[in-house]
C-alpha cells in the first residue's frame, strides 16, 4: 500500500451539553488514499459529520481531545491556526449538506467561488473571478460568465451545490470532503450532483470523502466504505464486499431494512428494532447490542475493537470476529 494522503487515527471529539459530555467521535481511525472516494455512512448523530469537521478543525463548539489527523506529514490537530487556514480551502475543501444556506446571500456567486484563490493564491479580484467563471462552467453552470454575477438566491438548489463544488475546486485541493452533499436535493438533482462528483474525482484526481446516510449513494460512488454508529466505526471495507457480505450486524440489518427499487417481489422489510442510542448515555459494551439480533453475552459487557474480519473488511463485533457468519432468520 502506498502512503495514505490523509490518515486519521484514534480521533476523539467531544461536546459539552447540559445533559453531559457527548463523545461525538470516539476513537475513529481511517485512511484516505489519493484519488479514491471513501464513503462514511451512518444515521444522524453517529458522528460522521463531526469527524469531517474535526479533520478541518471546524468542530467548534466541540473539542478534539485525542488522536491525530496526519496530512502531508503534519498532524492537523496540532498545527497552528494560521497553518490550518492554509490547509482549509486550499488543500482540503469541504462542501456541505444544504446548498441553500451554505452560500453567503449577500455576495455574488462568482465572488464567492473565487474567494479561495484570492485567499490562498493571492490572486487579484479579476483573475479570481475569471478562474471562478471557468470553474463554474466546468461544473456545468450554463452561461457561467453571466451567472457568476448572480446572487445565490437566483440559483436553484442544484446550481448552488455545483457552485459549492466549484468553490472547493478552484484551488485544486487534494481532498474534497462532501458532507451529505445531496441530502437536501431532489433525486434528479442528486443524480446530477453525484455525476458531477464522479467527474471531479476522475478529472482532478481529488480524493473524496463522501458522507451520507444513503446506502444507495455510497454503493454507486465509493470504492471503500466506513460505517459509523454512535461515534464509532463499526465496519469498514471495500464497498462491494461490505454490501455483499456485511461483517457487522448493524450494516447487515440496515441493508435488509431498506426497500430496494429493483426488488422483484414485495417482501416485508426487516426493520432494526429499537431506537438509535442516546449519545449522552450509551449502553455498556457494544453500543449496538440492544438492537442487535446476533448479540451474545459479551456484547453488553465489552466494547469490541475494529478488527480485521475476513480478507478485506474490518468490523467491531464480537460475533463476526469470532468467525460467525451473519445470516438472516
Amino acid at each position, binding site marked *: 500500500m502506498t502512503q495514505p494522503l490523509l490518515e486519521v487515527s484514534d480521533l476523539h471529539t467531544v461536546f459539552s451539553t447540559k445533559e453531559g459530555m457527548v463523545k461525538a467521535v470516539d476513537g475513529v481511525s481511517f485512511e484516505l488514499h489519493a484519488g479514491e472516494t471513501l464513503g462514511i455512512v451512518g444515521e444522524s448523530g453517529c458522528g460522521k459529520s463531526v469527524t469531517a469537521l474535526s479533520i478541518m478543525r471546524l468542530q467548534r463548539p466541540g473539542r478534539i481531545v485525542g488522536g491525530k489527523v496526519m496530512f502531508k506529514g503534519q498532524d492537523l490537530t496540532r498545527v497552528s491556526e494560521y497553518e490550518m487556514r492554509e490547509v482549509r480551502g486550499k488543500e482540503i475543501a469541504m462542501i456541505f449538506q444544504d446548498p441553500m444556506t451554505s452560500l453567503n446571500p449577500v455576495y455574488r456567486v462568482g465572488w464567492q467561488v473565487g474567494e479561495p484563490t484570492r*485567499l490562498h493564491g493571492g490572486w487579484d479580484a479579476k483573475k479570481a473571478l475569471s478562474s471562478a467563471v471557468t470553474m463554474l462552467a466546468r461544473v456545468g453552470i450554463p452561461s457561467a460568465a453571466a451567472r457568476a454575477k448572480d446572487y445565490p438566491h437566483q440559483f436553484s438548489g442544484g446550481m448552488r451545490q455545483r457552485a459549492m463544488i466549484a*468553490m472547493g475546486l478552484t484551488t485544486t485541493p487534494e481532498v474534497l470532503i462532501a458532507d451529505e452533499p445531496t441530502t437536501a436535493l431532489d433525486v434528479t438533482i442528486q443524480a446530477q450532483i453525484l455525476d458531477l462528483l464522479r467527474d471531479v474525482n476522475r478529472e482532478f484526481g481529488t480524493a473524496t470523502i463522501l458522507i451520507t446516510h444513503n446506502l444507495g449513494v455510497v454503493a454507486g460512488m465509493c470504492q471503500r466504505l466506513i460505517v459509523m454508529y454512535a461515534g464509532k466505526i463499526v465496519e469498514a471495507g471495500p464497498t462491494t464486499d461490505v454490501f455483499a457480505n456485511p461483517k457487522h450486524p448493524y450494516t447487515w440489518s440496515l441493508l435488509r431494512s431498506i426497500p430496494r427499487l429493483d426488488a422483484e417481489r414485495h417482501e416485508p422489510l426487516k426493520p432494526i428494532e429499537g431506537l438509535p442510542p442516546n449519545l449522552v448515555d450509551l449502553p455498556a459494551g457494544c453500543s449496538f447490542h440492544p438492537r442487535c439480533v446476533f448479540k451474545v453475552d459479551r456484547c453488553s459487557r465489552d466494547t469490541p475493537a475494529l478488527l480485521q474480519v475476513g480478507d478485506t473488511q474490518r468490523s467491531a463485533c464480537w460475533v463476526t470476529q469470532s468467525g460467525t457468519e451473519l445470516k438472516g432468520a
Partner: protein
Amino acid sequence: MLAKYVARRFLASLIVVLGVTAITLALMKTTSGSYVPGIDLNPALRPEDIARLRTQLGLDEPPQVWYATWLWNVIHGDFGRSMIDGSRVTDHIFERLPNTLELTATAIVIGVLVAVPLGVIGALRRGSKADHGLTVVSVAGFAVPQFWMGLMLILIFSVTLEQHGLPWLPSSGAFSAFQGGDLLDRVQHLILPATVLSFFYTSTWSRFIRSSMLEVLSQDYIRTARAKGMSERRVVYLHGLRNALIPLITLIGLELPGLVSGGLVVEVVFGWPGIGKLAFERALQYDYTTVMGVTFFATLLVIAGNLLADLLYGVLDPRIRYG
C-alpha cells in the same frame, strides 16, 4: 419596477397619513373641551372675544368639517397657520427641521459607529466581561430615562465643571446666544444632546447587532467561509457583518420618525430648537394646525423612513426585489 413599487407604497401611505392625522385631531378634540388655543386666563378677554376667536379658528365647526377643510387646504399645499401665533405651519416646520436633522443625524451616526463595534465584540466574546459590560450598558440605555440622563450630563458637564473653573459644555440651545453659530460653537452645543440621544440608539442597536451577529455566525455560510480557510476576522467582518447589518437598516429606518419624535425628550431637556420640541409645546397649547401639520409631516417621514429602509434593504440584501 422600482418606481411602481414606490408609487404603490406611496398610495398605501396616504391611507396611513389620513388615519394618523384624523386620530390626532380626534384626540386633541376630545381632551381640549371648549378650550380655545391661545386663550389664557386673561382678565381682558371677554366671552365675546372667545366666541369670536372660536369662530375665526373654525373651532365651532364639527371636527369632521374642520378636518375636511384642513385636508382640502393641505391637498392644495396650504398647511394653514398656527392658532397660537398666526405664522405658517410650514414655516415652523422648515425652520426647525435643520436643527432636528442636525441632532438626529449626528446621534444616528454616532449610534451606528459605536453600536456596531460594540455589538460585534459582544457577539464574538459572548459571555465575557466585555459582553456583560455591554449588556449592562444596554440595559442602562433602556432603563435610564433620557431626561434624567440629560439632566445629569448638564449637572456634570455644564454646572459642576463650570463651578470648578474647568472647561464646560453649554447646556441648552443649538448655538451660543451671543456671537455663536460658527462650527465649533454648534459642535459644542451638539455634544450633550447628541450624546444622550446616541446613547439611547447605541444601547438598542448594539444589543440588536449582537444578537443579529450571533445568529449570522451560526449560519452555514459562515462555516463555508471558515472552511475556505479565511481568518476569523475576515469571516466576521466580510461574511458576517454585512448580513448582520441588514436588519439594522430596518431599525434605523424606523428611527427616522425620531427626526420628529425620537429626539423630543432630548430636545425639550436641552432646549434644542427642533421639531420635536415644537410639536410638544404646541400640543400642550392645543395649537391644532401646527400639531396637525407636524403630525402630517412626521407621518410622511415615518413612511419615507420605512420606504428608505426597504430600499436600502434591497441594496444590502440582493434577495429582496421589488415588484
